[in-house]
């Protein structure tokens, strides 16, 4: 299904919102840096950096890929692992 707006219209409508959200993320990361202590080894920070890399690449489906970055892995053998009764 096509988007009714063309790309220049989308950018015109959303530029300030994108700018504001990027600043919010930048300020949050600055705040982490200014605060005492270190979270350098916290796996959540690594996830954030993975997500930022997705934002900056030229591929599509950024939202879906960022969702997957923050998701636990799926194991197709989970029913055997749980020893659930077979149907």
């Amino acid at each position, binding site marked *: 299904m096509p988007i*009714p707006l063309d790309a220049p219209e989308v950018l015109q409508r959303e530029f300030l919102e994108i700018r504001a959200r990027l600043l919010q993320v930048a300020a949050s990361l600055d705040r982490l840096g200014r605060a005492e202590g270190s979270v350098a080894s916290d796996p959540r920070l690594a996830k954030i950096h993975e997500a930022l890399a997705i934002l900056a690449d030229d591929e599509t489906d950024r939202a879906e890929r960022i969702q997957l970055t923050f998701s*636990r892995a*799926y194991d197709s053998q989970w029913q055997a692992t749980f020893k659930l009764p077979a149907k």
Partner: protein
Amino acid sequence: MYYFDPHIHMVSRVTDDYEMLAKMGCVGMSEPAFWAGFDRGSVEGFRDYFRQLTEFETKRAGWYRVQHYTWLCINAKEAENLSLSREVIKMIPEFLDRPGVLGIGEIGLNKNTKNEATIFLEHLDLAAKTDEQILIHTPHLEDKYQGTRMILDMLCGDRRLDHGRVLVDHVEEHTIRAVLDEGFWAGMTLYPVSKCTPERAVDMVEMYGPERLLVNSAGDWGPSKPTAVPDFILAMRLRGHPESLIRRIVYDNPVKFFSQSRNFDFTPPEVYQTEPMG
């Protein structure tokens, strides 16, 4: 525009919310059974809850000419208690023929544990044996992708189930495709932080089309917005989508899905709103 909120927990909301929703065009809603914020201690606690859902909420909604429907189950968080869950599942059929009961829900997973999966399967068995529709909760945040895939495995593993009579709720960008590809209905929940925004929901409409797609507020006792569906309607208009497409998602689709339930006695608002109050 008239609309239907297919997933909202009105037992957690005040009467003023019914009035506000009615003023904003809400003419119908369905309320799945869910977690009360604490684990209930006995099957009698659930019996009282089901009475509240099937008796008082219907009446309270009716004060504002909103038609209220409900779904029954023990939710995934309390499913960790296997013995209580089985007592509740055994008791549910007492209520299945009551007016406005649409089926079994919201069942699902929370932390994707063995006990949750066991009780999910037992709910599916009840739904299959009683020919009920099913409404499904998918987990939050980092557990959503894994849990949704597990839920789809269990649904697709039961050949008795008609996929067109199952609604999988709280889909997001990384789960919607798999749900729709298997022939299930998909619900997008509009939550301030932890689920989907109106703008992202519009994106998913554009990417996947309106077929078998619903949008809901899931308003409850936590941070949530019962008027989120009107927010979605406005976001669709601002994006330039026609009223016919918006109406299909917020009114025609829920009515079409719920019409598969024998207890869905919906009266169109053009008739219902002008009938004398009973």
